[in-house]
């Protein structure tokens, strides 16, 4: 299949005298680089400028709370099963009396970890989740010095209770 019209048939023919003299080809190459010299750079100066993200960008995950502030996740493990990269692990626990404010279902994830080095940001966990608990957000996972620091626990994944800390995922919900 022809993808572009720039492809050339390779041949091993003898070079002509002009080609063997290098100079014309060298000058042609220099003309190309000089043209690029005056082109606008393609660089996005990252911390100051950011590339525009798509509304449905698949970045760092968030574990959602419901309208009362209770965690939605019930530690069913479907996301972990769905995950092609095997990035998710969790430990389930039973909800005690008096914890209804914290956890929506009777079972909850005591530990919930995503290894961001394994994750390929495919979004299958989100599709698998029956409780609408996990979503991918527009945030990107920052770089780090240690591999351990890429294992994100509940402290980094669960969104805050206050309305201002809630993360809007409506764009990814109504797909």
């Amino acid at each position, binding site marked *: 299949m022809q993808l572009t019209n720039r492809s050339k048939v390779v041949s091993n023919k003898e070079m002509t005298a002009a080609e063997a003299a290098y100079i014309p080809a*060298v000058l042609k190459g*220099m003309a190309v680089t000089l043209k*690029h010299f*005056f082109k606008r750079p*393609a660089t996005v100066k990252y911390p100051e400028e950011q590339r525009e993200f798509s509304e449905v960008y698949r970045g760092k995950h968030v574990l959602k709370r419901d309208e009362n502030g209770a965690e939605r996740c019930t530690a069913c493990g479907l996301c972990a099963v769905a995950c092609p990269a095997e990035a998710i692990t969790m430990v389930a626990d039973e909800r005690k009396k008096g914890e209804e404010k914290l956890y929506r279902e009777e079972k909850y994830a005591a530990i919930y970890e995503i290894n961001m080095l394994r994750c390929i940001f495919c979004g299958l966990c989100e599709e698998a989740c029956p409780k609408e608990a996990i979503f991918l957000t527009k945030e990107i996972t920052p770089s780090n010095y240690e591999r351990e620091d890429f294992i994100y626990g509940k402290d980094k994944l669960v969104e805050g209770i206050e309305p201002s800390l809630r993360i809007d995922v409506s764009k990814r919900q109504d797909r």
Partner: protein
Amino acid sequence: METIFLIDKTVIAFIAFAITLLIATYSTYAERKIAAFMQDRVGPDRAGPFGILQPLADAGKFFFKEEIIPDTSNKFLFIIGPGIAMLTALMTSVVIPWGGSLNLAGRDIPLQVADLNIGVLYVFAVVSLGVYGIMIGGWASNNKYSLLGAIRASSQMISYELSMGLALIALIMITGTLSMKEIVEQQHGMNWNIFYQPFGFLLFIICAFAECNRTPFDLPECEAELVGGYHTEYSSMKLGFYMFAEYINMFISSAFMASLYFGGYNFPFMDSLGLSQNAITIIGVFVFFLKIFFFIFVFMWVRWTLPRFRYDQLMRLGWQWMIPLSLLNVFITGLVLLWYDK
């Protein structure tokens, strides 16, 4: 009179030294910027406005880097290597006429450290010494890659020095002198040697690329094959010295090309402007540096355009093409000179 003469020369030598170092420092910055622009990037832009302080930051970093001297190396030679490279790089600037002469307090002060009557020959002698710095450094490192890089550097420099010299002989046949000052003065106005020796200039610039170990002839340090070439084992400011020496060499060969072929500090219509001698001299110095900067730009431009030669291609080009062609150039120049003499 003697002491005043000495003071003049010392001052000029120091200024030339300082300018050489400054330009070498900022060549690193220019190189990175030019590379970036040619690759549609921005280049260093964090240290100071437009990254203008980047070379200083680099130099500072060089000083604070850990100094590693390999256990098995010959310590004395290992340390003296970069020094020799630097010394020979700096020595060549002595004979370059930076400008005409300034008339200060009734005395004519030529802007040249020493007007040797064998200036061109002197440059050649010193440049060929430069290979010792590389060779000693590479040998003393006791590392295969360093040694290979050093051997490549020396064989390449020796091969290309031949055709470089032959290209120059054709020029000297026209000028009839070896003094840099006289060669430049003969090109007064627009009477530049490039119009008499265009082919010789082409040969010369190709050899200059090889002499400075610049792409497409940067085999001594080709990262893909030899790690870092002759300076693989070097760290800290000693590595800095080698890199500095390379940039100084580039600056000096640009100055050399500008003064031998492109009229040095001469510029068109310099007599019809009706300016005083001092003004002409100062403009001349600026013009000279413009020409030098242009050639430095060409050096970098070529570096970021062309891929590297293979080693056998390099040697074949040197011995089978450059030397016969420069001999032919000498021959034709001689014929033409004979013709005009009659």
